[in-house]
């Protein structure tokens, strides 16, 4: 199992990595902690696609340094509030990555996601792009609210990676 965690909160990410490492023994877990890093490495991920991506929504662009990368227009306009959504769009635009399952793992509530995504009828977690009907073969996107228990996330990862394997 190859998992990428995108989260700018080091305390959250450290905990998550420890929990996932415990369950998915011998797995490769990478941590990406800024939107800029995710964008910079997208081609690298396309060459060796992960099995699943766990993505926070509110992400910083970068860390303080004397040569900080410039903010692209869309980031300048929307700010950090929608960084995870932008990363998802970038992913969907890559042939090698568009079918990699992604879970928005966030403290945001369902209502906060509904501006861009729709929940698949009858499902508590599965999402589809707004205005587009959900198809069985569609790239799996899901939502899970962050909690202090890793079990729900692990179950969702199992569910999404299993469905991918069946396809």
């Amino acid at each position: 199992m190859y998992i990428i965690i995108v989260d700018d909160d080091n305390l959250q990410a450290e905990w998550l990595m420890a929990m996932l490492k415990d369950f998915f023994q011998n797995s490769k877990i990478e941590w990406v902690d800024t939107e800029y890093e995710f964008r910079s490495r997208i081609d690298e991920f396309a060459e060796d696609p992960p099995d699943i991506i766990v993505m926070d929504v509110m992400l910083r662009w970068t860390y303080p340094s004397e040569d900080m990368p410039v903010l692209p227009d869309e980031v300048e306009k929307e700010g950090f509030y929608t960084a995870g959504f932008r990363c998802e769009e970038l992913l969907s635009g890559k042939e090698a990555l568009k079918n990699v399952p992604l879970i928005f793992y966030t403290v945001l509530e369902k209502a906060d996601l509904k501006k861009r995504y729709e929940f698949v009828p009858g499902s508590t977690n599965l999402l589809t792009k707004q205005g587009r009907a959900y198809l069985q073969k569609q790239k799996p996107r899901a939502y899970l609210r962050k909690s202090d228990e890793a079990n729900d996330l692990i179950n969702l990862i199992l569910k999404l990676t299993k469905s991918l394997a069946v396809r």
Partner: protein
Amino acid sequence: MSNQMPHHIMNLVSTALSQNKLSIISGMLESLAKAVNAYGCILWQVVPGSKLDPVDPSGYLFVLAEWFPNKKTDPLHDLPLEDSITGAAVLSGKLINIHNYHEDTYKGQKPYTKDPFIEETGIRSFCSVPLKFLDGRHGALNLYRTELVPFSPQEEEQIKQLASLVPALYKAIRDRVNFTVIRNINKILNQAERKASKEKEPPSKEQVKKDIQRICDLVTSTFQCIETSIFLEDRLTRPGVYELMATTWSDFIVKDVYTKSEKDGITGWILTHSTAVTIFDLAHYERDKELIQKDYPGLSWDDNLDIKNAVRRVRGLEEHEALPPLSFMGVPITMGKEVLGAIRCSVAKEGPYYFSDLAKEILRLVAALISRYWRNWIGQCEKQEDIRSWEALLKSVREMNRFVHTELTKESPNEHRIFTKTLEVTSEVIRGAEIIDVRLPREGELYFAATHGAYWNEGNRQAIEKRRHHTFSLDEKSAGSLVFKTGRVHIMSDVSKDEYYKGHFDGIKRMIVAPIRVADRKFGVLDIRGTGEVDFPPHAEAVAEFLGQQLGLFQYLANTVGKLRETQTDLTKKIAEQTLLEEQQTQIFVDLKHQIYSPINLASARLQMFKREFPDAAASATMLKIRGLFGKTRRIAMNLALIENLAREKPIEVDLVRLRTEELINMLLGSALNSQLMMRSKFQVEFEIDRPTFDVLETHEVSVDKNLLEHAIMNLMDNAFKYSYPKHTVDISGGSSKAWFYISIKNVGIPISERDAKQCVERGFRSADARKVTGEGSGIGLWIVDHIMKAHQGMLQIIPRSKQTDVRLFFPLLRK
């Protein structure tokens, strides 16, 4: 003359060094006897305390070791110094050669012939050579022949030559044996510890006893004694009692526990005085009592078990047969000044019969090894116990957090339900907590806001109502009002001794009262009482304090979150007035939610990590991070409360008190630590507090609302760390001018322009660069700090200096 070592000397040396056992001393004597065609050989040593005055001697010689072929009976075990040929040799320092045992005399003395051994073996002649051992003690080497063939002058020279080697060889054998025993014990304990380190739980007491028994066996075989016993205090299950862990003489030992008491025999004395004891011969204890008590004041020993007969039984000796010295040595097992137990050895089976000072020193080393091992094991057990307690606490706290989390998301959070849940948790995690309640203040009184335990439901309805509606004046000297006023935990381990409670609360034995508070904000007290015989567990105080703090935090959040919706409406209105986009308004509230729930979630998740890591070193780092997360939650909650007031254009109320240097430094330190803990360690942002610059507060008066000041500092510190470049230091200092005292927080990081410096106190403002590095926050921190400073008649200044930003809080100086 040949340069080669004579054969008999080579033989003696190689025999003496051939084994790591004391029994080889006999082997050495055998080799010696055979070298001069003697029938047998005895190595004698002078009893400690004897007087070696040639004119007026006193005391004895005793057998250190002997060798005889086909020995049917032990040789005599002691000889008087003044009434024996061997004694004469020792006193004169000269070799004495007795040609005919039955006829010869020496200075009018006949050889000492009181022992049946002489008759049984048929000894006819012997030679006694005086010796001086390397520890300074005197002795003699006697060689015996059964034929009437006296030792010739040549043989006398040969004997002298061989005897001159004996002290060094004797010492070498003892050293090797001692080294070996220490090495072997170390091996046993290392093996045991290695094995234990692979297990999740410490070894059982039974297993530990087995390891200690192995040590006992080893010590017994080393000192060739009958008994080695080890007593240790298991302070977890039987504090104050030293129980028998292992012995090699279980038939004889009837006493399985000792206490620290001079009345508890020699072992009790060792435990009481933490001092080693050696006694030459227990058989003569009554005779030597005065001498012994001179060395060990207060020591007394009753031979209840009749040791002489017990030794006879073990050795199969008849009553008329002589006993060798029944030597005893015991040393305390200590760790620093703490006495963990004692190890004792008694009654050597073979020579050397006396436990020398050297043997005692070795036993001390053995005791040191046992001490380390035992302390480690006890430490592991305590940690295990701690883990269990913490696990129970963490489980309950997580459950409580979830409960509160759910409660807070409701339209109107119900604080009573939160209190009740906390009381349930308290009763689960503090053993013996039977009567528990939460008391809140109302009009100068404390009332019961929630109760838990059977006590509250005892009696008829009227009695129950009366009990629950009782109130306590804050002016009373009750523990509740004391804790509410001081904000510190109060423990009463024996309620009957307290003036206020004595007679009022029959049946209540102990109590802990913890404040319910967040920083300086006090909400009430958590009162825990027990009636049973068993004390509260040692961690009860820490747990009560922790639960009080949690409760304070939850109440704070409940108040704050409950008002959030109203605030949102007000703020939306305000923001709309300022023509901000609708999306931005939503984002600010999304962010507020994110900021408030994230740390609660994470703290709870981290508690799980703590449980996994405990007792590793990583656990303390996790605990610090949990502390940092709670600190962050508190800061956000307070931000929300202040936004609410400011949005309604309500002025911030201040409760001014004089600010003291240490208080301020503690605030700065705690806040800087919390902010640093939230950072990724790879960025290595450090901080420094210039303490002397705050001394001005000792001579000048500055009044602040401590709660608000701490909040302002937390907001500034968060910014300073968040916007710092890696590997830089946040400098914290103080200063004063004629009219002002200021706190300065400087960091090197994202630069701020002069224009931005003015703008950044506006609500929602963030500089272009600051927007790149934040993943949460709504740009309200400095806006709030600015208001806090205005409420203090002070000011906030942001001074840009190239890459460095100096943020200062100015407070008016009241008087010099």
